[in-house]
C-alpha cells in the first residue's frame, strides 16, 4: 500500500462543480457580455475627469486644476511598460500581452526604449550583476514614472532571496509603487496590478 491520492472533502465544502470540466456546453461564439456593452465597460471613466475639469474651468480655478484631471486620466490610461524580461514572470508578462488577456485593451503597450516608457514592470529575479543596469534604465525613463514589482523575486527575492547573487527585493534599488504577489503571478494578477496602479495614479493628483 502506498500513498494513493484520495479525494476527501476539504474543511469547507467546495463549489458544487468541483472537478467538473467546464465548457462542455456548446454555446460557442456568444460573448459573455453583449457586444455593445463589452465595448463600453470602462468608457465612462473619462466623464468624471471631464466634469471636474469643466467645473474647474467655470469656477475660474488655477490652470492646474483645469487640465490636471484630464492629464491624470490620460496618464493612467496610457501606461507604456518597458519591454524586457528578467525571469519566469516575464513569460507570464508575455502571456498577459498574448491573445487571451490582451493587456493592450487598457492601453498598455510595451516599448523597447526606456525613453518612451512610463512604467517599469520588474518581472523576475534581480541579481546584483544587473542591478546597476536596472537603475540606469529607471533613470532613463522620463518623469512621471512608476515601478511595479511583479512576482515574489522582485518583491523580496522570492525563493532565491538567500542566494549570494540576488537582490532581496527591487525596492532596495528603485521606489516601487505596486507589488504583485505570485510565483509567478497569473496574467490576470498582472492586469490586476496595473489596474491598481491606475487607481493609485487617480488618487495621486497633481
Amino acid at each position, binding site marked *: *500500500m*502506498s*500513498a*494513493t*491520492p484520495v479525494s476527501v472533502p476539504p474543511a469547507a465544502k467546495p463549489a458544487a462543480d468541483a*472537478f467538473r*470540466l467546464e465548457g462542455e456546453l456548446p454555446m460557442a461564439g456568444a460573448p459573455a457580455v453583449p457586444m455593445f456593452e463589452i465595448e463600453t465597460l470602462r468608457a465612462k471613466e473619462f466623464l468624471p475627469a471631464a466634469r471636474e475639469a469643466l467645473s474647474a474651468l467655470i469656477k475660474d480655478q488655477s490652470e492646474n486644476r483645469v487640465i490636471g484631471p484630464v492629464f491624470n486620466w490620460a496618464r493612467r490610461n496610457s501606461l507604456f511598460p*518597458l*519591454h*524586457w*524580461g*528578467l*525571469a*519566469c514572470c*516575464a*513569460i*507570464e508578462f*508575455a*502571456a498577459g*500581452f*498574448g*491573445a*487571451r488577456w490582451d493587456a493592450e485593451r487598457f492601453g498598455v503597450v510595451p516599448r*523597447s526604449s*526606456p525613453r518612451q516608457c512610463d512604467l517599469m514592470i520588474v518581472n*523576475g*529575479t534581480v*541579481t546584483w*550583476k*544587473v542591478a546597476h*543596469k536596472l537603475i540606469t*534604465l529607471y533613470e532613463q525613463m522620463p518623469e512621471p514614472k512608476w515601478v511595479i514589482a511583479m512576482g515574489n523575486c522582485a518583491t523580496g527575492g522570492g*525563493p*532565491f532571496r*538567500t*542566494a*549570494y*547573487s*540576488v537582490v532581496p527585493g527591487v525596492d532596495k534599488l528603485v521606489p516601487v509603487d505596486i507589488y504583485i504577489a505570485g*510565483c*509567478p503571478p*497569473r496574467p490576470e494578477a498582472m492586469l490586476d496590478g496595473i489596474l491598481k496602479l491606475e487607481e493609485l495614479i487617480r488618487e495621486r493628483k497633481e
Partner: protein
Amino acid sequence: MSEMWINMGPQHPMTHGLWNLRVKIDGEMVLDVDPEMGYLHRGIEKISEDRHYNEVITLMDRCCYVAGFAWEHLYILAAEQALHIRPPERAEYLRVMSDEFQRIGSHLMWYAAFVQDLGLMSPFLYGMRDRDLVLDLFQAYTGARLTYEYMRVGGVRNDVPPGFTDRARKVLDWLDDRYREYDALCMGSTIFRERCDDLGILKANDCVAHGVTGPMLRAAGVRRDLRKDRPYAVYKQIDFDVAQADAADVTARYLVRMEEMRQSNRILRQVLDWLDHHPGPMMADNLPRWLGAPYAPIGNEGYLLKRSYPKGTGFSAVEEPHGEACAYVVNEGALHPYRVKFRSPVFSNISAARQYLVGYHVADIPPIMGSVDVCVGEVDR
C-alpha cells in the same frame, strides 16, 4: 561607418531574457560576438544544498521557466538514482506525459518568440494563445501554470482529474490543425524563406565539438535523441520518430522543432491511451518518511542522525525541449543533497555563438538567436 562594438542586452528585444550579446560590427556585418551571461545567476545549485530533496523541485521549475517539467524530471531521475528509489509505472507515464506537453508548450513559446524576431506579429499571438491551452491542461492537474511542483522523489503528487484525457485529446486535435497554420505562415511565405535559408549555419562536426545539442544538432543531420538513444522513464515502450533535417540552417531548425511537436502529439496519444486503462499508485512503496509525498520533510534534523541512509551518486540525462540536459546529484546520506550540478543545453548552445553568428548581418542576429531558443534561466541557473 567604422568598426564598433555594440551591446545587445541586457535590455534588448532580441535577447528574450537577461543576457548581453556584445557584437562587433562593420556597417551591417557582424565581425565578432561575445556573449556575456550571468545576469540571471540565482545560485540554484548553491541553494539546493540547503534544501531537502523534495524542496529542490520548487527551484527546478524556476530554473528553466519554459520547460519546468523537463527540469523536474531531470532532477528527479538523478535524485532517485542517488537515493536508490524506483517510481511506479503510472507515475513514469504521467511524467512522460508532462514532459511531452511541456515540449509542445516550450516549442510554442519558442515559435512565438522566434517569429516575433522576424517581425511576424500575429503568429506571436497565435503561439501564445495555443500555448495557453497546454498550460490550462497543466493547471488542471498540477494547479499552476508555470511552476508545477508536481513530481516528487519516488513518484508524482497526484493523478490527473477525471475527464482529463479526453480534454487533452481535444487540445491535441486543435494543435494538429494549428501546426498546419504555422507552416502556412512561415514556410508558405517567400520572405520567411529568403530570411531563413542558409542562415546561421552550424555543421554537424562543429555542433559536436562545441557541445551543441537538441534541435540545433538534429537540424545538422545528426540523429541524436536521448529518448531513443538512452531511453529514460517509459520512452522505450513508446513508438515515435526522431525529427531530423540536413541543412543546418535556421529553416532546418524550424522544421525540426515543428516535426518534434507533431511527434510529441503522437507520443501523447499513446500515453493518454495507456493512462486510460492502467490505474495504479502514484508513489513508490517504502519511501523514507521524510520523502513521502503527503508531507514535506520536517525540519527536525536530529532524528536523521540516528537513521543513516545509504549514500549514492545519481546521474541523469533528459532530452529537454532545448537539448540535452544532465544532472549530477551527490547524496552523502543527509537530508540535503551534498552537491547538485546541472548541465544546461542552452549553455553550450550559446557558448558556440561565435560559430554561427559571425559573417552574417546585424539583422540576422535575432532570427539566428531565436532559432537557438535561448532560455536564460537555465543557462545562468
